């Protein structure tokens, strides 16, 4: 067998903690190994060319790429191998970066581990056979869960691109949290204005189906052919869709979960959201207003250690607004850090200070409502001195928490949440819109705090990605499905009993089982349940794994 090994340095990411020369030395000249080549970045153009040329010139029958982990660049490397004339399933990726060089410090031990991982990969690879991906038709339709700003942005793009769009919104109208925002910084528009404009656009598009006061109650199927059931005021509605975007937004942090804030107990303590809804509060001369930053964020005691990103600008906006209403008010903001990160934010912060708002870096330890006012007790962290001041109004700049329906949706769709309860993206940097499941995307603040601009962009980006997947009308599905060796099957039907996808049927005439390929999910439970492995999972045969085990445990 002609096996080619390609080792990537990944710049210094692999090279610095793994002795690549030793690896080359170990495998060069070994039986069945035709060539061992290394290169700084195999994913680069010249790196790819190196692999392609080697496959062609050395007439390689199997390829090992020892580099970054399998999930990265998988499509690129598979196409590369295919274009070089070799079946892409005769390629084995070994992650000597994420599973070796990045997780160990000792060069010698890392090198030994890398050699074992590559050796095990080769033993497994020797059994691989050519496989072909299946072609499956996909529906050019999308369900968007949540009709807030990111959901609507996604819907507009997809509808304009010719997809059939369904929007399911649990409230009785579209718009989400933006309906309650009176003045959006810096555009100075009302939330309602923006929402209404988008609603008009959606109305004009023919292929948009909007379901308000509706929820998702069941979900199954696979990419391109998902079956979703919505509960609408008119009854249940079953739809078949190609993909789904989760855009259910966030829940505002509820300060009553921190009783020391006295929220809900005293009317003089409100949130920025309450303030938004009641911007008609009038301010008299001498009114004292306190604004507290980071409520519900960066707080270990409630398990929310993240920054909610939008609340500093919110707080500054509130302070600025109060001062513009009446410049003879006393406005003081208590902060840990001021993160006015958007464009123009820093200037806005300075402008607010120039208007006369005081910014005090402090930890507030107690809020004590008294007859004359609300007393804030805390420590000024820059001066290192405790203080006590009385205010007429305390505004809590609350953060963003995970959406309350997050767990239910995650369960229905079988996608994951991160430790803070937000939806987990496939990769924080490289795939921020995808989930682990193909065809299911996330958009907006349901995957983490975002402001309006970011939510719109996120919604559009998810829509673009989903469009790219569904646009052709068909897709290729991986060929990892179960396969029965009819000579070895005893017809005991244990695989049929456990099959999750119900993809196995009994043939009474031959007393064996058969697999229905379209339904098979490729989990391999049947293979592990059959005592003789008469039914096996293509791509994960027993021999692949047992030899991989042998390779990992061999001495030297």
């Amino acid at each position, binding site marked *: 067998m002609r096996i080619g090994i390609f080792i990537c340095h990944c710049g210094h990411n692999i090279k610095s903690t793994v002795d690549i020369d030793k690896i080359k030395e170990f495998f060069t000249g070994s039986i069945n190994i035709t060539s061992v080549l290394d290169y700084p970045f195999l994913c680069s153009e010249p790196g790819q060319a190196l692999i392609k040329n080697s496959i062609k010139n050395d007439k390689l029958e199997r390829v090992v790429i020892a580099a970054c982990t399998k999930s990265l660049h998988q499509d690129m490397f598979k196409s590369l191998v295919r274009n070089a004339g070799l079946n892409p399933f005769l390629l084995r990726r070994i992650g000597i970066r994420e599973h070796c060089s990045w997780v160990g410090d000792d060069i010698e031990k890392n090198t030994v581990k890398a050699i074992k991982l590559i050796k095990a990969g080769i033993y497994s690879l020797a059994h691989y056979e050519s496989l072909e991906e299946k072609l499956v038709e996909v529906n050019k339709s999308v369900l968007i869960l949540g009709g807030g700003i990111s959901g609507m942005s996604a819907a507009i793009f997809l509808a304009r691109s010719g997809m059939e769009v369904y929007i399911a919104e649990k409230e009785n109208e579209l718009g989400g949290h933006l309906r309650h925002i009176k003045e959006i910084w810096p555009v100075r528009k009302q939330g309602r204005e923006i929402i209404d404009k988008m609603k008009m656009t959606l109305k004009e598009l023919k292929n948009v189906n909007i379901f308000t006061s509706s929820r998702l109650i069941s979900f199954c199927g696979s990419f391109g052919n998902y079956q979703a059931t919505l509960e609408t005021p008119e009854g249940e509605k079953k739809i078949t869709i190609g993909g789904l975007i989760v855009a259910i937004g966030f829940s505002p942090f509820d300060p009553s979960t921190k009783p020391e804030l006295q929220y809900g107990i005293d009317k003089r303590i409100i949130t920025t959201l309450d303030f938004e809804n009641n911007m008609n509060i009038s301010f008299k001369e001498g009114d004292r207003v306190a604004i507290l930053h980071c409520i519900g964020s960066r707080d270990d005691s409630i398990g929310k250690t993240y920054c909610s990103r939008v609340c500093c600008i919110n707080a500054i906006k509130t302070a600025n607004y109060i001062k513009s209403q009446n410049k003879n008010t006393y406005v003081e903001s208590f902060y840990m850090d001021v993160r006015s990160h958007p464009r123009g934010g820093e200037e806005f912060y300075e402008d607010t200070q120039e208007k006369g708002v005081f910014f005090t870096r402090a930890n507030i330890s107690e809020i004590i409502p008294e007859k004359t006012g609300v007393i804030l007790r805390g420590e000024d962290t820059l001066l290192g001195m405790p203080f006590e001041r009385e205010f007429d109004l305390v505004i809590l700049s609350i953060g963003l928490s995970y959406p309350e329906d997050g767990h239910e949706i995650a369960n229905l769709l079988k996608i994951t949440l991160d430790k803070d309860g937000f939806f987990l993206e496939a990769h924080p940097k490289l795939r921020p819109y995808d989930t682990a499941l193909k065809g299911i995307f996330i958009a907006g603040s349901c995957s983490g705090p975002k402001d309006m601009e970011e939510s719109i962009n996120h919604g559009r980006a998810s829509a673009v990605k989903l469009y790219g997947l569904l646009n052709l009308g068909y897709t290729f599905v991986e060929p990892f499905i179960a396969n029965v060796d009819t*000579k*070895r099957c*005893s017809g005991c039907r*244990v695989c049929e009993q*456990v099959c999750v996808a119900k993809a196995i049927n009994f043939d009474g005439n031959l007393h064996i089982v058969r697999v229905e390929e379209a339904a098979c999910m490729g989990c391999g439970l049947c293979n592990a349940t059959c*005592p*003789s492995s*008469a039914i096996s999972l293509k791509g994960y045969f027993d*021999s692949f794994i047992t030899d991989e085990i042998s390779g990992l445990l061999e001495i030297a």
Partner: protein
Amino acid sequence: MQGKRIDKEKLRVALNRFVEKQNHIVYGYGKNGIFITHKIYRDNPEDLSLFNPYFGLNGATFFYRVFGKDIKVVMLLRPCEIRALIELVKLNQIEPETITMISIDCPGTISQKNAKADLPDDFIEIKKAFDKNDSGLRWACKFCREKRGVVGDAGIRVQEDGGLWIFPYTDKGSDFLNLIDGEIIEYTAKFVISESIKTEPFVTDMDKFYNDFSKCILCKNCRDMCPVCYCVDCLFNGDEYLPKGDAFINKMLRTGTQNLPYGKEIFHMIRMYHVSQTCVGCGACEEACPQDIPLTKYFKGISERLQNLFSYMSGRDIKETIPYLTFKEDELKDAED
């Protein structure tokens, strides 16, 4: 409990009635020289014996992959054999419509290898002989979990005074009872064997294992004679777990010094796991072993321990699903480490 009082003669008449019909067979024990062995009767089961104090192999092995629906067999066997048959039916290796299974109270057995004397063919006599001197009694029988004829379609139980009764457990059993003369009446006396014994959870270690299994020559007889090892082509016929030829030599060169035959413990441990939920503890494996390895101790011990984990007993009920093929959402809370 409702059943019929029987004796050897009544049973013989009933079996004759059964066997007269087309394609009807009786399967049980019969005299064979000085021994009693398994026998299949196409007509007149004159020398049928209800009790067989010699154990050579598990009677369920003869009925692997019997799928014909137009044959009818009535089986009169020990509880361990009936339990093995029930597990094979669950595994779709025997057509259930074909067989009517009747289990008989078992006084225990000695290995056919050691049989010299002519043991009597009577429950009370055999039991007396074993109570006096149980040195020959097989290990599997000494610690047998279920000696009572309470499994299958019907069961033959022995009363304290030696009288025999037959009780139906399913409709098929009732159908067979109709062939026996006499009325169905309420049973009120005491049985000789009234309850199954409880065994301690099996514990051992690898030193003991290697000591006991050092003699193993990997002949695979134990696997071949096991009634619930049903695979058409066993995993160990191939070379994934036990390499052959050059692959074997190359592996040894890479891995290091080995005791041979290589893979003994892998074979036995994997087989132990595979049969753990269906093993009936009959000890046929030990009977078949040419090296007299105490297999029953290990296989019966492990399988009982693993079955108890799921409150399962192999062969107890044909409707009970094998534990590996089902699950409860809320269970095994301490499975995680």
